[in-house]
């Protein structure tokens, strides 16, 4: 019996080959006649003004941080969700429901806090 993750590894290799063949084919077959204006950044036909890598809106990094917070809490919910029915069968259902109710309540309080602080408003 093979390792259960062996097919996943093979699929990643297969997907990589599939994508790699396309990359290789287009770089081999296509013509290469780069001119200066062809190789300049695209700005609707105008001469590019400044660099693209300037300062960004802080909103984006705020979203990323909020994502990490809430996504980790999602991950914490998964084990409970899988075992919830088993707990109900073994009579621990109410206890687990209250426990998770407290967890969800804290999560909701966090969401309300972020909401009230206007971190979710996109100007």
């Amino acid at each position, binding site marked *: 019996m093979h390792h259960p993750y062996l*097919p996943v590894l093979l699929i990643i290799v297969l997907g990589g080959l599939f994508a790699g063949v*396309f*990359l290789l084919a287009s770089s081999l077959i296509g013509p290469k006649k*780069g001119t200066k204006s062809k190789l300049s950044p695209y700005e609707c036909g105008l001469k590019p003004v400044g660099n693209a890598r300037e300062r960004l809106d802080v909103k984006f990094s705020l979203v990323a941080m909020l994502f990490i917070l809430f996504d980790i809490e999602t991950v914490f919910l998964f084990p409970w969700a899988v075992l919830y029915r088993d707990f109900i069968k073994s009579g621990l259902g109410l206890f687990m429901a209250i426990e998770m109710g407290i967890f*969800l309540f804290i999560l909701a309080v966090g969401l309300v806090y972020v909401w009230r602080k206007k971190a979710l408003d996109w100007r």
Partner: protein
Amino acid sequence: MGIIIAKILIPFLIIVNLIPLLIWVERKGSAYIQDRRGPNRASFFGIRLGGLLHALADVIKLITKEDIIPSQVNKPFFILAPFITLTIACVTYAVIPFADPLIIDGKLFPLQAANLNVGILYILSMSSLGVFGVMLAGWSSNNKYALLGGLRSSAQMFSYEISMGLSLMSVVMIGGSLELTTIINQQSHFPWQWNFLKQPLACLLFIVATFAETNRNPFDLPEGESEIVAGYHTEYSSMKFAMFFMAEYAHIIIASALISCLFFGGWQFPFLSTHFLREQAGEGIFILLLAHAFLFVLIGIFLLSKFSKGKYGDKRDYEVLVIGVPFTLLGLGLGFTALFIGTGDYGVMGRQIFAALMQFGALMTKILFFCWLFIWVRWTLPRFRYDQLMHLGWKVMIPLSLANIFITGVVLLFL
């Protein structure tokens, strides 16, 4: 080893071959939604095949186009981005089961590429990796439109990933497992026991979240062409652009497969259980062959009736014959085969394979329906504004999915 490779390759080839077909459906469908004819020019010796040849022509065109790598880009990441995007899009299908497990010598033989017991977590993790390709593409292009598109896309995917995970939670609570096979088995073959009726809110939230995750309209802000040219793939040309395009359609197919597996019974054939399909395999094959024969002959005769020699005055007149004659002959052949073999017995293995094929057909029907839903929505709804998108993701979908988990927990407790 051979079996593993077959189990990997067959669904992979199906997905890869569905991509050009979906592009054709998208172009043709959008054309008919907008009251025009759509692609109908590419021809093979004067035979056009209803625009299907455009997919082939596009591939040849894109491969032979110049692969422009602009001078200001970060070259390794610029090349890596489409590679990552397409690879990740091809990897997610691994845990999707295509039919009820076969029983060979008393052992279960699951019909899915990788039989993981963390199926849903695998899908969530792999689909979240897709952000990297988009982010890398946007950043490495060193172009303002591309950077804005990449940022928009990553913020959007992050926001909707949370509600995607939370909406799946209630399905996991009902199914009590992360394995897709268990979740599908628990939904049973009666449509009124499928999860979209037990969890209508979670189903709706999940479908909306997958639309956002695949960057499709109404959430296609990352490539909103009226605002930021083409978003994160502005600087990409030739096959690299096509790779982003293919990855988008691969994501659509996998998202449709997930929606059908989690909420619409997956491979469950409506009203017919696996046991019934295996028991009645002989009659089933007979009826199936006859039905297909009837359908094919009907299509063939309809096409043949359209034949008139003077319509165009060139080879295009014979297009209907090129498709119509094989269809009629195939239909007649299937019909005679059905009458010839009748309702025979096919042994244990034959019955199981028949049941598996029927269930695979049911799954494919559901997948194609949801693929069409993606296309339909794209050409019907306008695009969101960015603040509306964020508002929907954070202030509507996350509270709703949290409430859904809470309600599901309480209902399960007192049921």
